[in-house]
């Protein structure tokens, strides 16, 4: 692994000062499970790594009743999975977390890190798009909320500047009596693999109103919401196979899969149809069978 300096700030203030000092040669790390591999493979060659994992204040999952959940940068995927509130409110995200890497790596890999890696196959991104999560982006003197589609602008590319830190993820709690969801993906192997194609589908019900959301991963340069698919679902009271096919068609129009060593473009197109059907049908089944929460 190429040499780099490591700075382990005790708090955000120290981190910001460092970034402002060395901004062009610095990369941020939380869990580091992607970053260390990228450095090893020469995909990034930072002069300095600023390791946010030393900042204790970023370890929290904070539930703000009626508003949303605030997740610190250092919260590991396993802590998300084990958090009862997260499970109750954001089931598709939990399902995505559970397919990410393996049980040991999930002790290290963080949710915010997965978002900030911004890889096309990032498992947690499609459900977070459905839940309209926002990155909490801070500098030493500012703080803003940035919706994920505005944060992630390309493969491994984010829109924020070198002096900004995604300190938290904010997931708003929509008004709903029921939240169900599903994350379905194709991969070569059952465990510890990257998605070849992935679909997240969520459904909120509130006083009889239904709100479907749909997003895909590993099928385009960045994971995307498929609004046309959502429109079809939300305009229909009786979702049958025909509707599901129309939704799948809408998804196929919205994606640009590639051929690589993990899968062919043709396969990704074809399997997406199955994943859309499956995630949709799971959502509908769960809406019927699961006790309403919220």
């Amino acid at each position: 692994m190429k040499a780099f300096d490591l700075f382990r700030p005790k708090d955000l203030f120290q981190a910001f000062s460092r970034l402002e000092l060395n901004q062009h040669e610095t990369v941020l790390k939380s869990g580091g499970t992607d970053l260390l591999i990228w450095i090893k493979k020469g995909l990034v060659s930072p002069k300095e790594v600023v390791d946010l994992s030393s900042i204790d204040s970023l370890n929290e999952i904070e539930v703000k009743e009626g508003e949303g959940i605030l997740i610190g940068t250092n919260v590991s995927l396993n802590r998300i999975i084990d958090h009862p509130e997260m499970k109750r409110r954001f089931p598709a995200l939990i399902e995505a977390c559970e397919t990410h890497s393996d049980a040991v790596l999930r002790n290290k890999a963080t949710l915010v890190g997965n978002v900030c890696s911004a890889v096309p196959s990032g498992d947690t991104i499609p459900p977070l798009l459905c839940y309209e999560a926002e990155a909490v982006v801070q500098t030493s003197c500012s703080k803003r909320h940035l919706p994920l589609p505005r944060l992630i602008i390309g493969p491994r590319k984010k829109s924020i500047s070198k002096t900004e830190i995604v300190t938290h993820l904010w997931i708003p709690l929509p008004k709903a009596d029921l939240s169900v969801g599903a994350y379905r993906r194709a991969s070569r192997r059952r465990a510890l693999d990257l998605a070849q194609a992935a679909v997240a589908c969520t459904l909120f019900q509130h006083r009889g109103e239904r709100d479907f959301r749909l997003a895909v991963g590993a099928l385009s340069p960045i994971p995307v919401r498929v609004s046309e698919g959502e429109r079809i679902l939300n305009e229909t009271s009786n979702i049958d196979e025909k509707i599901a096919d129309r939704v799948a068609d809408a998804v196929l129009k919205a994606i640009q899969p590639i051929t690589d060593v993990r899968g062919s473009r043709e396969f990704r197109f074809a399997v997406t149809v199955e994943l859309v059907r499956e995630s949709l049908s799971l959502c509908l089944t769960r809406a019927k069978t699961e006790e309403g929460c919220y």
Partner: protein
Amino acid sequence: MSDKRVYTDTGIGKKVERKFDREKVAGTLQYTDDLPFGKDLLYARPVRSPIASGIIRSIDPRKACAIPGVVAVITGKDFPYRFGLYLKDRNPIAIDRVRYMGEPVALVVATTEAIADSAIEHVKVEYEALPAVLDVEKAVCDPSVLVHPDLEHYKRVPFINPQPGTNIGNWFKIRRGDIEEAFAQSDTIIEEKMECPQIAHGFLETHCCIAKQDIGTGNITVWSSAQSVFAVREILAEGLGLSTNAIRVIAPPIGGGFGGKAGMTIEALCLSAALHPAIKGRPVKLFVPREEVMLSSWVRQAYIATIKMGISKEGKILGIKNTFYFDTGISAEYGANPVRSAGYTSTGTYYIPNVWTDSYAVYTNKPFGGAYRGFGLPELMSAMEVVIDIAAKKIGMHPIEFRIKNLLQPGLPTCTGMPMSEHALEKIIRKVQADIRFDEKEKPLREGFKRGKGIALAIKAPAKPADAASSAIVKLNVDGTAEVMAATMDMGQGAYTAYAQMVSEELGIPYDRIRLDYPDSATHPYDWQTVASRSCWAMGMAVKEAATDARNQLLALYAEYWKVKEEEIFLKNGSVLCPKKNLSETFGPKLQNGFPMPDGKLKGGPIIGRGRFVPEDVVNPDAETGQSPKSVVHFTVGAIAIDAEVSERTGEIAINRVVAGYDVGKAISPINIQGQIEGGTVQGISAALFEGLVFDAQGKLLNKDFTDYKIATIEEVDFPIESFWEETPEEVSPYGNRGVGEHSMISPAPALNNAVYNALGIRFHRYPLTRERIFMATHAKKAVTEDCYD
């Protein structure tokens, strides 16, 4: 064993605690990478070719040499030696010409791994690209691109048959009977094509080697993650023109081999540094990171088989015509032999009177093929056992009845003409058939899945030169403990456990008082190689003989000492007894320091038993016909059945149950046999489901690490493997036992392929059976109805 008058609770067939397991679970066992060499140690890293074929125009190491800590940059011209086990076609560092993407073109030696790692980027190499040949069928037909234009000048052993002026590194033939006449008399002819890709061994320990030259003597010591210290020593000595006793090879424990550490792998490359004048006798370490393993050492050869079979209306196979192309990459030095192995087993487990086989090792500009668990047989049987199912269906016969009707029963000639020895294959097949409930159509266990069952038979002989020899020493110590010197590499298969059980069986010494150590060519007596499922059998012969020799010495001394007949002495759990005279004592200092005999003189001294073995009567097959009265020492046979189900919707294969049985002759260590069957079965299933090297059009390996070269995890193994064995004794064998280490890996893939066909009605002609491949076959716009060649 009353005729031996030896009693032990820890002998053959007993459950014992495996040797070295305690060190392994405690983390204290030192593998090559764990050995300390102090501050003197230097580190080597290769500069690798970025093109698959081309001329090296120039190499400029000056910038690299200027980096502080860089000690030397070595190029092929500094080390102009060719090496190879069967055919010397491999330069450790390319000279003038590169032949595959990833081939070492220079070696940087530095004081730290990090410096070496960064310095390789500063060795400037200019290439002139040449056309590369990546497709094996093209390489065979088209001599316009030759991987080895100098093939005719390469040294080789007599039983390897390269074809200079072509890309054929070895051509093995079987010609028996009249194949055209057989086809003319057949009522049904089928011809099928099957393909397997190159695959990786996937051992967890990557290669590691440390080499050091003594500046006083010039002698060399090599520590290496090698399966066979003596093979490494001989190949190095021959390649360098040194005497064998100038080279000492030490093999610390290795973290899995599966053939990938057989013969010589990275040792010569490491030596190119240790022998360089600038190194001045310092030890040099070459550690291969995971992403370079497949570029540094063997992979399993890719394989394309065309099998034509003629069958009578009674269901008898009258003739078979085989063409096998093994893609051996840029070197056939080892890969030439799996080609033979598949060739001289090319009728599988069947008796077929008329045989025509051409088995070729074909050079391409890809990483090189070599030994891999099964040694040509998993490739062969991945095709053969599928073709047998296709044939049975075509003639409307039950696949198992068809197999049994044509079975290579004891006494019938194999395809090389040697009579098949006794075995229990038919019994095994019937047991597998019953236990998997082969003839019962069962409902799928998962919604939306289709269930199927498949069977495949397995066969393999130890593939080795006729004169592969072994020797062993058993030393008795002052306190009645014993040390066994046997240069087998115990790479997890449990050889040392088996040997200790053998010595316990012969000397009555308790198992835990018997010690073995890892191979060192300076202290251990000779053994050819730890390969070919031969060790428990061939080295077993030597170990048993050595233990028997020690026992005979001991009995003779006690007979004289006690003034009794040898037949009146018994050995029991570490003691010696003469019930007739009511004498007994535990083994002790006399075994080392001599016996005070009745005549008042000391007699004896340290008891050292000696054993050796070489098979007496193996004759290499005839070059033109492949016929031989005894082409191999023996065959181990078996069968595997898989109950699986497949989702047409997702392409997923789920396995419900596996039943597998082999005729092991005699189970020396049941715990190890079960381990070999379970491990090989999962390795075979993993290969069938996931594995294959993928190259781009320029010959770049795209899945060189575990991120993209997927092997089975524990998540895949959510099914039981019901393993069993039969014990039809082998005549020439220490205890009737024969090899079983590789056999479990041979036929999981075709059994799974047959199960998938049974479930879906789609025949896959290419491995692996990835989820994508199955999904595309069932979902494609023109969904596959019968045969899938994609």
